[in-house]
């Protein structure tokens, strides 16, 4: 390359610094967004798996009603099992306020009296381990929520009797990284649910289960991230064999448990979303670079002609113009990579806060060098090549022609279509669109990319809002009363409705059930309640309205998805060794869990003597009497906990706030990028038309007429971009919404009809706004240059 030609690069940078700065900003933003999301997602996964390995998180949890403690030895002998611990897990109530009788559900888990647990070890950031029979470790997130500290005394109610304990320490445990109570309530709700660890001897003494366990946790050989599915399948078979004779057997893999599943779905789902957004940011920034460089090179036509006339080769010219892209890529890539790394703390930390209460022992956010280099390399290569096509094209123009002022070219066949039925102004608009199909296609494509980003975010937000809002709206009660054992429905109904402050109540049975699908079974919950005035009224998605009849059941959309069940199908339901068949009358929205809703009338046909055993009462209370009623209900015999549903909803809303904010952040980033893409493509479009616009102005065409013509052209292109962008964006949003699908959790993907016009109007407004800089610059052109035959 000629040395003197290199000096032109510096001169050109100085002369066109605004253009280069714009390109540099966009590239830096693109690389920074990439760095903030994709490598950050990788760091997050690394942190989670590091935590799992550090604390020996289980691969399986086996639950039975009761089994001898020695059975764990058989489990440890299974090939591929690295560790297994037997334990007792019981539900208890914690009396958080000595003045109030109401209890909050606290799960007690036994830990070995001697030595540490080998599976699901606790990390104790505050306080110390258990040293006495009357000491417990309390889940840190739960303790923090209720302001309980190490050294505090707490009263636990176990099997109806109170026991005083001292909190030895606050614990983080991988099994409750996301501290959800169950698969049906997988998100942390510290107002309603907590976990405590207690010495094995102390617990067996309290529940009178010496020498027995009801849960076994199993860890396999290898690291958490790499355990093979074949090994898992083999171990599962062995576990099934060992425990086949024990009642109440459930074997769940890590991802089938509440916390493991939520983590897996969120980490993987977010990682995919982050990867997708990173790719979109990167692609958009590269497209903008290509547009900007293309414009620059095309404006250099006469200089290229001069250089060619002077004997500069085509190769030298192409290399010369490639160096602009190379410099933009190198500088933008470097700065963006560094910025992206620092921004990544802003994307990971809120996630850790939301999901793990801000404490993750294996948390790391070291620079993910291979991924950062990947983004940097892609950027440098792509920005370098961005100017290749226009550089090659322009340098190929014979110098004699390049040096002459541009003469009108013969319009292509497409733009020679008569269009006589249109007024002249519209005719010109459409011919302009058809004259340079590549420019028009690029503008429409730019608008389409923006539309995709906006509608992907809107679809994700709509899906989240609909799924959660409809879930919360479906539960039409204030308190949920849980009793320890099944009781007759009429008895509980009477007891509950006579409590002071209770307006009305409805008893229900929430029970485990196995749904048999065509290819697999699913262990889930059945909700049985009176169909005449149900206190749970889920939103209908398909079929007949929920509880509108008594000759069938309704299922949540997750169950329909997991087992591929449709309205009208016969469902096989199995519980307590009995199997029944019921027709699916409808599919309802139910973000949490995969429940089956059974009308009481149908259920009592299946029970001997038509009795209705229940374990739950859904209660509506008089205004302002929630606390009193909750306290009074706790005193009803057999009641183990009374859940304040409004507090539970608030907890879940707090937990979801991060994802909503995240989705809005994506939407705002999308809109910013949309604006950048559209401003650049529209400006490029207008820039190419500047000569025509200047001629029109010199002929006396008014600014208003020009604005109308330009807007018409761009709005036509915008409609094309939007027409393709909306369905693609919708599908991208739905894909993102489904990245967190699990057996017992999933959003119902939806784009609200009202969002479509709102989104389209927003895009069109962006397009209109995007024309402002281009039109301003067109109106600033010195019209004298038109008559002087100079390039405008």
């Amino acid at each position, binding site marked *: 390359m000629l040395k003197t030609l290199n000096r032109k690069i510096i001169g050109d940078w100085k002369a066109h610094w605004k253009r280069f700065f714009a390109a540099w900003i966009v590239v830096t933003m693109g690389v920074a967004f990439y760095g903030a999301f994709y490598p950050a997602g990788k760091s997050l996964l690394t942190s989670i798996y590091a935590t799992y390995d550090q604390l020996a998180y289980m691969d399986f949890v086996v639950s039975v009603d009761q089994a001898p403690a020695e059975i764990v030895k058989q489990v440890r002998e299974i090939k591929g099992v690295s560790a297994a611990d037997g334990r007792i897990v019981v539900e208890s109530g914690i009396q958080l306020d000595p003045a109030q009788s109401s209890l909050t559900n606290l799960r007690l888990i036994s830990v070995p009296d001697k030595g540490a647990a080998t599976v699901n070890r606790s990390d104790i950031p505050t306080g110390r381990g258990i040293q006495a029979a009357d000491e417990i470790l309390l889940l840190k997130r739960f303790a923090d929520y209720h302001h309980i500290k190490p050294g505090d005394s707490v009263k636990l109610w176990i099997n109806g009797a109170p026991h005083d304990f001292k909190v030895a320490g606050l614990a983080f445990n991988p099994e409750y990284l996301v501290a959800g109570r169950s698969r049906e309530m997988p998100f942390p709700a510290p107002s309603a649910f907590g976990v405590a660890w207690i010495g094995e001897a102390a617990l067996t003494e309290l529940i009178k289960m010496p020498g027995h366990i009801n849960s076994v946790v199993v860890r396999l050989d290898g690291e958490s991230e790499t355990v093979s599915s074949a090994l898992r399948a083999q171990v599962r078979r062995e576990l099934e064999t060992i425990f086949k004779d024990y009642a109440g057997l459930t074997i769940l893999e890590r991802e089938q448990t509440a916390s493991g599943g939520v983590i897996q779905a969120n980490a993987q789902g977010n990682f995919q979303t982050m990867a997708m957004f990173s790719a979109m940011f990167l692609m958009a920034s590269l497209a903008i670079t290509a547009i900007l460089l293309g414009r620059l090179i095309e404006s250099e036509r006469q200089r290229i002609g001069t250089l060619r006339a002077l004997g500069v080769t085509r190769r030298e010219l192409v290399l010369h113009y490639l160096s602009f892209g190379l410099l933009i890529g190198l500088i933008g890539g470097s700065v963006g990579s560094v910025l992206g790394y620092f921004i990544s703390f802003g994307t990971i930390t809120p996630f850790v806060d939301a999901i793990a209460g801000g404490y993750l022992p294996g948390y790391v956010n070291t620079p993910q060098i291979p991924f950062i280099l990947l983004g940097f390399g892609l950027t440098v290569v792509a920005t370098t090549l961005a100017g290749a096509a226009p550089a090659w094209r322009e340098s190929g123009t014979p110098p004699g022609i390049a040096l002459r002022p541009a003469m009108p070219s013969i319009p292509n066949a497409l733009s020679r279509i008569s269009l006589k039925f249109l007024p002249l102004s519209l005719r010109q608009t459409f011919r302009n669109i058809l004259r340079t199909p590549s420019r028009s296609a690029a503008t429409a494509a730019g608008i389409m990319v923006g539309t995709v980003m906006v509608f992907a975010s809107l679809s994700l937000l709509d899906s989240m809002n609909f799924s959660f809002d409809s879930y919360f709206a479906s539960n039409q009660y204030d308190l949920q009363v849980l009793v320890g054992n099944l009781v007759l429905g009429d008895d509980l109904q009477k007891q509950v409705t006579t409590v002071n402050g209770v307006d009305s109540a409805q008893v229900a049975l929430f029970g485990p059930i196995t749904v048999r699908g065509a290819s697999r079974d699913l262990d889930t919950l059945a909700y049985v309640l009176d169909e005449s005035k149900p206190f749970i009224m889920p939103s209908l998605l398909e079929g007949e309205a929920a509880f509108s009849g008594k000759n069938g059941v309704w299922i949540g959309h997750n169950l329909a998805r997991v087992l591929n069940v449709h309205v009208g199908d016969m469902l096989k339901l199995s519980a307590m060794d009995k199997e029944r068949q019921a027709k699916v009358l409808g599919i309802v929205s139910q973000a949490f869990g995969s429940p089956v809703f059974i009308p009481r009338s149908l259920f009592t046909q299946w029970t001997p003597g038509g009795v209705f055993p229940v374990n739950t009462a859904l209660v509506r209370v008089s205004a302002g009497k929630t606390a009193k009623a909750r306290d009074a209900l706790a005193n009803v015999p057999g009641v183990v906990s009374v859940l304040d549903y409004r507090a539970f909803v608030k907890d879940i809303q707090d937990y979801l706030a991060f994802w909503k904010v995240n989705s809005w952040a994506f939407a705002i980033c999308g809109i910013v990028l949309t604006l950048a893409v559209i401003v650049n493509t529209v400006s490029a479009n207008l820039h190419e038309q500047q000569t025509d616009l200047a001629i029109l102005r010199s*002929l006396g065409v008014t600014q208003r007429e020009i604005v109308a013509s330009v807007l018409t052209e761009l709005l036509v292109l915008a409609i094309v971009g939007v027409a393709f962008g909306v369905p693609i964006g919708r599908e991208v949003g739905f894909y993102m919404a489904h990245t967190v699908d699990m057996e017992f959790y999933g959003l119902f993907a939806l784009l609200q009809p009202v969002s479509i016009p709102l989104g389209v109007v927003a895009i069109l407004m962006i397009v209109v706004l995007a024309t402002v800089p281009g039109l301003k610059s067109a109106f600033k052109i010195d*019209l004298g240059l038109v008559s002087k035959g100079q390039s405008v």
Partner: protein
Amino acid sequence: MSQISIKDVSKRYRVGNTVVRAVEHLSMEIERGEFVVILGPSGSGKTTLLNLLGGLECADEGSICVDDEWVNQMDENALTLYRRRKVGFIFQFFNLLPTLTTRENVALTAEMSADSYDPAVLLGQVKLGDRMDHYPGQLSGGQQQRVAIARALAKKPALVLADEPTGSLDIETGIEVLDVMRSLNRETGQTFVVVTHNAAIAQMADRVIRIGNGTVQRVDMNPSPLNPRELSW
């Protein structure tokens, strides 16, 4: 009173650190219906003068009055309306809109005026009746310039300004274009102001204004202008 009155007009440009005095205290008068040639060497300020007269640029000093309208006092919108109603431009490089056919290019300006020529008739007059549905890219330079002439005249402007109309054409085509302009001037009575550095063209003008260094050097009236067909250069 003259149709065009330019008094003490100056226009300066800043090029880097240098101030270029394109037009300096220039004054002149032009009568209605005249065919005027402004003659001057390259850089003498003749295109700038034409731009000032046509409202494409604004004078720094002095006054320009066309048909009792003070062009130098107009704002951007008024200048646009002035160009729309009063002025027809013929550019050296034609500046036709490539996406419009010959007829449509002419119709564009015809639509700006309630009293305009039929584009087809006008194109017939400039001998392009058989090229009306062609696009500019399908025409020769001379043909494009004749379309530009038709476009300039279509709205029946009071003033037609032509900047080096033969500058991009060979002699034969240039004469043909000048002939069309002269004929239309005689037929319509519209004032034509032609800027050129080609002294031969001055022989067909009613009035010849020679400018140099941004000022009027000399004004000559031509009692017997030549027919463009008699010109040669």
